[in-house]
Every structure is written in C-alpha cells, then in structure tokens.
C-alpha cells in the first residue's frame, strides 16, 4: 500500500512541476503538434506539381510548339521559355529550374525528312525529387512525340490501328506500387518523420525531467517522496510520461491512418501497439543516458546528438543495406528502427504477428536497459556529487 501511495505522490509531485514549469507541456504537446502539422501540411500534395522546366525552343515550329504545350499540360511540369541557352543554363545552375530541354534548330524539318533530330535535356540532380520527376516527365513526352510521328507515318501507309499499337509499343510495363499506390511522398515521409520526432521528444524531455532533479538538487526530495526507493521514483515519473506520450503517439497514428487516410494494409491496433512500444523503448534509452552521465546538460547534449542522427539511421530514406558495413550495427541502437520494421510488416504487407514478433521483442528488450543504471542513478541522486553545470 505504501508503495502505491508513494508512487502516487511522485506522480503528484511531477504534475506540480509541470504546472510550475510550462516547458514540459510545451516541449511535449506544442512540439509534437507543430511537427505533425508541419509534415502533414508541408507535403499535403503528395506529389509536387507545376515544377518549372526550362525550354529553349530554337526551332519555333508547330511541332516544337506542340511539344511545349503538351509538356506544360502535364500535371508535373510547367514550361518556362528562354530565348537562349546561356540564361537557361544559369537558371538550372542556380536551382531556379530543375531541368532544361533544348529543341534544336530544324527540329521539325528533320523529323519530317526522317533525319532523326536530337533533343537535349539537362537535369539538375541536386534537387532530387523535382529533378527526377522532371526527368521522367521529359522522357515520357519525348517518347510520345516520337510515337506520334511514327503513328502518323504508319497511318499514311494504311496500317491497321491494332497493328499500329503493336508497332509503336511492343512491350509495356504495368507498375504496381505496393504500400503506397499513389506514390504519395507525404505519406511516405510523415509515416516515419512524426514517430521519429516523437522518439526525439521523449528522449529529450525525459532526460531533462530526470536531469533537472540533479541540476537543482531536488533529487533527494524526489527520493524522500518516493520512500527512499529509486524504483518507485522512476516508476511514478515513467507512468506519467508513458501515459502522456502514448496518448500523443496514438493520436498521431489515428491522425495518419484515419484522418489523413494514408495507406495501411494491416490493422490500426497493431500500429498502436508499435507506437506504445516505441514510447517505452525511447524512455528506456533516455533513462540509460541520464543514468550513465548523471549531469543534466551533458546528458541532454548526448541525447540531442543521438536522436537527431536517429532519423537518418532508421533507414527509411537510404535503406540500411546501402550504409557502410560499420554503421549498420549502429542502427540497432534506435527504437525507431524497429518501429519502422514493424510498420513495413504491418502497414505495407499486413503480415501475421509471427513475421514481426522479433521486432516487438527487440523493443521490449530496450526496457531492460534502465535496470543497468538504477544503482548508479540512485547514487547520483543521493550524493549529488556530479557537476551541476
């Protein structure tokens, strides 16, 4: 009974701290709300549209004009006309356009007389998405133009319409994007960026919460409230944080898959489970860090360096197998990595639990980490013998 009462007292004490120092609530709720709004609204279009494509039309014939109009009419591209190559190239180099298409002089004449004119197009591959999409758009348009000319010739020859298709396009490919059929860039990034931010916020806030006790020397009071038991003290704090972060994490998941309607093959409940485990594992990492380095500001600096790098090491942009061998092990230090694996199994493939239980085990294994540093943390809390600043 005393144990329960003590735990309750710790919770009450923590709540009072929240009221006194709004930074906790701001750091949790405001930060997560901002991130959620940012990633959902910034990428809300899913696929960018009207990306400027520079066109230098040296031919100025009906064929080249037609080509430009068609290019302009695609959802992705917006044609920007230039008079000369030099100024277009400068804009390509300056990143104002991501691709450039040069239609040579005599383009139309050469087509008509089957002299195979060469179109040049340049892409600025430093603007990844805009560049690669513009590239795809231009390639499609050139193939269509080429096809249109062929069709005209074949029709004049009196070839049957069915046969024309076979001649124009003997092989075709049917593309199926599993897990994100519309190639929604927003869904792709928000699905991982927002939980990634949650991991970051948990690590930072919890280190701060445990670290300020040391910094302001209130840790003895905390232990006193907890009946001189570090486990009670941590349990009390963690219950409060776990509940708050789980609520935040679940709201995010519901927002993503119900409100935004991002594709999710499996059930939402499984993602909620993953989200809850992410919260537990991230909290454990935070306790480990402050336990190992019981100096508030050092622990915070370490936590910040750790969690910022976590977004890259999760492997949802550049897959882990493309990273150097020595770094792949490092990715295992991040709860988000396992959360991502669970998301792939649940969200994309709807696999049975048997296929991804090991990631659940891995996340649960994180929860053992705090036990290694409990003694150390308690000593620091009692003796307060580390530098406070």
């Amino acid at each position, binding site marked *: 009974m005393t144990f329960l009462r003590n735990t309750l007292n710790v919770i009450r004490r923590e709540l009072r701290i929240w009221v006194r120092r709004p930074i906790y609530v701001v750091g949790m709720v405001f930060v997560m709300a901002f991130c959620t709004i*940012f990633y959902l609204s910034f990428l809300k279009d899913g696929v960018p549209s009207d990306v400027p494509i520079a066109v230098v039309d040296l031919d100025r014939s009906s064929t080249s004009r037609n080509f430009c109009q068609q290019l302009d009419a695609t959802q992705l591209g917006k044609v920007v006309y230039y008079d000369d190559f030099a100024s277009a190239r400068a804009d390509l180099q300056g990143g104002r356009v991501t691709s450039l298409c040069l239609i040579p002089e005599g383009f139309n004449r050469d087509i008509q007389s089957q002299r195979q004119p060469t179109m040049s197009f340049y892409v600025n591959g430093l603007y990844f998405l805009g560049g690669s999409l513009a590239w795809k758009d231009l390639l499609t348009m050139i193939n269509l133009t080429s096809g249109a000319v062929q069709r005209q010739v074949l029709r004049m020859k009196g070839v049957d319409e069915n046969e024309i298709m076979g001649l124009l396009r003997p092989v075709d490919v049917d593309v199926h994007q599993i897990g994100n059929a519309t190639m929604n860039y927003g869904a792709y990034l928000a699905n991982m960026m927002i939980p990634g931010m949650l991991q970051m916020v948990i690590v930072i806030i919890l280190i701060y919460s445990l*670290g300020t006790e040391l910094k302001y020397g209130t840790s003895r009071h905390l232990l006193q409230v907890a009946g001189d038991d570090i486990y009670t003290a941590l349990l009390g704090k963690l219950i409060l944080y776990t509940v708050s972060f789980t609520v935040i994490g679940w709201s995010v998941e519901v927002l993503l898959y119900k409100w935004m309607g991002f594709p999710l093959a499996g059930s939402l409940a499984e993602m909620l489970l993953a989200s809850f485990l992410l919260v537990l594992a991230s909290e454990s990492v935070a306790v480990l860090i402050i336990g190992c380095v019981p100096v508030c500001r050092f622990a915070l600096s370490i936590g910040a360096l750790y969690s910022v790098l976590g977004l890259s090491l999760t492997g949802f942009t550049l897959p882990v197998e493309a990273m150097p061998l020595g770094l792949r092990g490092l990715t295992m230090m991040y709860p988000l990595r396992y959360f991502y694996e669970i998301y792939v199994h649940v969200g994309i493939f709807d696999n049975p639990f048997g296929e991804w239980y090991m990631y659940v085990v891995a996340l649960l294994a994180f929860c053992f980490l705090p036990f290694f540093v409990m003694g150390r943390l308690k000593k620091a809390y009692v003796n307060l013998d580390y530098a406070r600043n």
Partner: protein
Amino acid sequence: MKNSYLGRWLRDVLTIFNMELKNVLHDGGVMIIFIAAGFFYPILYNFVYKNGILEDTPIAVVDNADCSDSRRMIREMDATREIDIAYRCTSMEEARDLFARRKVNGIIYFPSDFGDRLAGRQTATFSIYADMSSFLYYKNLLMGSNFVMLHEVNNIKIERYSFDGLTDAQADQSVNTVLYDDINPYNRAFSYSIFLISAILMLIIQQVMFYGMSMSVGTMREENRSFASLPDSLNGHGVGRVVLGRGAVYWLRFMIIGIYVTCIVPAMFNFPQRGSYGEILVLLSLFVTVCVFFCMTWSTLVTRRESAFILFLFMSPVCVFLTGFSWPTTAFPAFWKYFSYLFPSTFGCQAFINMNTAGADLETVGQLLNSLTVQGMVYFVLACLAIYVENFALKRKDEIDSAIRSVEDSIIEHGEKIGNHIEKRLTR
C-alpha cells in the same frame, strides 16, 4: 583618436569581445556542442551516406511466359546496376511470400501470353511490383526494368519494321524519329549522398551555432548575468557594441568551423567541389554573419541552459525540408514558403548547393545572396532591439519579477487544488 567616439567605440567592442571569448572557452558543455557537433557531425553524416546509391536490389521473378524473349529480358535486368534477380519463382504465391518476408524488395512478373503476344505483333505487357517502404527500392526496380524495356522495345520495333521489308537503317529511322541526349551534369548517378550532404552541411553550421549560443546565453541568464547586459561603463548606451562584440566571437569561431565544414569535409570524402574557393568563402562569411544575428535574436527566448534543446531541437529536420532540396520550393504551400524565410539556411543551403556542387558563381546565386543580406539586416536590427528590451526589463527586474511570481503562485495554487482533487478521487 584615443578619446574620440570611434576610438571608444572600438575599445568597447574589443572589451566585450574578450569577455565573451573567455566565457565561451570556459564552458565545457558549449565546447562539447561546438566540437562534437561542429566537427564530428559532418563526418558522421558523410559516413552514413557514403555509398549514396543502392545497388542490386534483390528481386524475385515469376516467368510464366518462359520464352526466349522473357528469358533474355530477365538476364538483361539482372545485369543492370539496379536489379539483382535473387529468386526465380514458379508461382506468384511463392514470390509474394518472399516479398512479404522481405527477402526481396520487388517482383517482376511475365504473364503466360507474353511470348505469344510478341510473336503476334501485339503489345506484350509484363508487371512489376515494388516495395514502397523505401522509395529507393521503387526507383531501382523501375529504372532497371525501364532501361531493359526501352532497349528491347527498340530491337523488337526494328525487327518488326524489317519484317515489313525495310532495311535496318530505314527501320531505325522510322522507329527513332527523335533522338535525345539526357545529361545530368551535377549528380550523374542520382546519388543520394551528393544531394543530401550538399544541403545539410550549411545547416549544420546554423544549428550548431544556435544550440551553442543558446546554451551559453541560457547559462548566463541562470547565473543572473544576462547575455544582454551592457557593461556598466557604457551608461546604458552601446547596444550595437554588445551585438557586434559578442557576435564577433561567434563569427570568428564559426568561420573556422565553417571553412572546415564547407571546404575540408567535402575534400575528405571526395565530394564534388566545383565552386571557386574564394567565392565559397564570400558566401560563407555572409552566411555566418547572418547566422550570428539570427541566433542572437532567437536565443533571447532561451531563459535556461537546456531550454534550447527542448524547444528547438525539432526544428533541425524541419529546416532540412525548408531548404527545398527535396520537395521543390515551387511546390511549397504559401505559409511554409514565408515561414522558410525566417531561416538563413533556406538561402544559404541553396546557394551552397548551387555553388559548391553545381559550380555556379556568385552572380548566378545573386538573388539568394540578396535575400541573405536583407535577412541579415533585419536580424541585426532585431538582435539590437532584443538586447535593448532585455536591458530595459533587467533594470525593472524587481517589479517584473514580483508580477511574474504572483501569476506563478496563482497557477500553482490552482494546480495543487486540482492535484488534491485527483488524489481524493484516486484514494476514494
């Protein structure tokens, strides 16, 4: 000269500069941020993205057509850099199983009528299924199969035209009515590292400066010697001197870090360096100047040492997106477009990408430099203003403190009431 306004002004700036320099050097936590983040982060990021390209994505093939054409296409796909045919399956079920168990990241499926349709001079269709858990898998599968398909399409077309009695040259002319050259001069392999690293190098400078300065400012505030406080000898004047004197310390330090980040790190990793050294230096000094005023302005909000991490750490990834290196600037929603103007990194990163990696000169990125300059002027005024206001507040500290305390007390009182209430409920 000695007693002129200018002379005194310069002496004051120097005094403040010395004070601040000592301050920063004595602060271990700040030094850790500067050294660990400033020096190791660029290396670490370069290391993570060192390979940059994903090669040989494992793919499963289901070849129900089993004809010479499909077999040849599979061989050719296997030979591309992008695709590795890891499994040949007899049925779609088998392939789907491998796919779901993540042994492969995609499936290529040739239907049984593929060969017949080719023979019948019709359009033959094959299917690809890509794992969208990372867009790079999709890109690889699509590019690898597209290369092979375009190549095959050409051959088959020429074959079909030749069948109609055209010579090879004639057939080629009828098939390829338009030729094209595709040139991707700055990032030939669409390498992930080249585009990402170019963007984040400058951002690292800005963020490290911000966290470092905020920590140091927060510490001073905690110890009741505000960053903003004017030396007594100035008699309440000299906001500009404080801003410039303190700023010079950070400027100097970050020019060193900046030269390391923008010139040495790329060289260490064999990263393209197409800009001229002198012009990069011009960009860097402008960027660092703007960053100093930017950080001074915003660090006014930081009252305690650690607050910067809690309140602003999440901005780092946000700033990465706001540079417009991935999601194109032209497709930004209006609000975020204006929001991005708040950060020097928005202009600085783009200018650096264009200059260092695409080889642009200062004139080409002139627009970005202009924006950066305007931003710097605005932030200078804001930094001065912030320091002025804070000084004003410091002088009337007691009155303000008592006002804040009464508000705090009432909040705590209410909080305790709520706490008591909850406890009563729980114990009942």
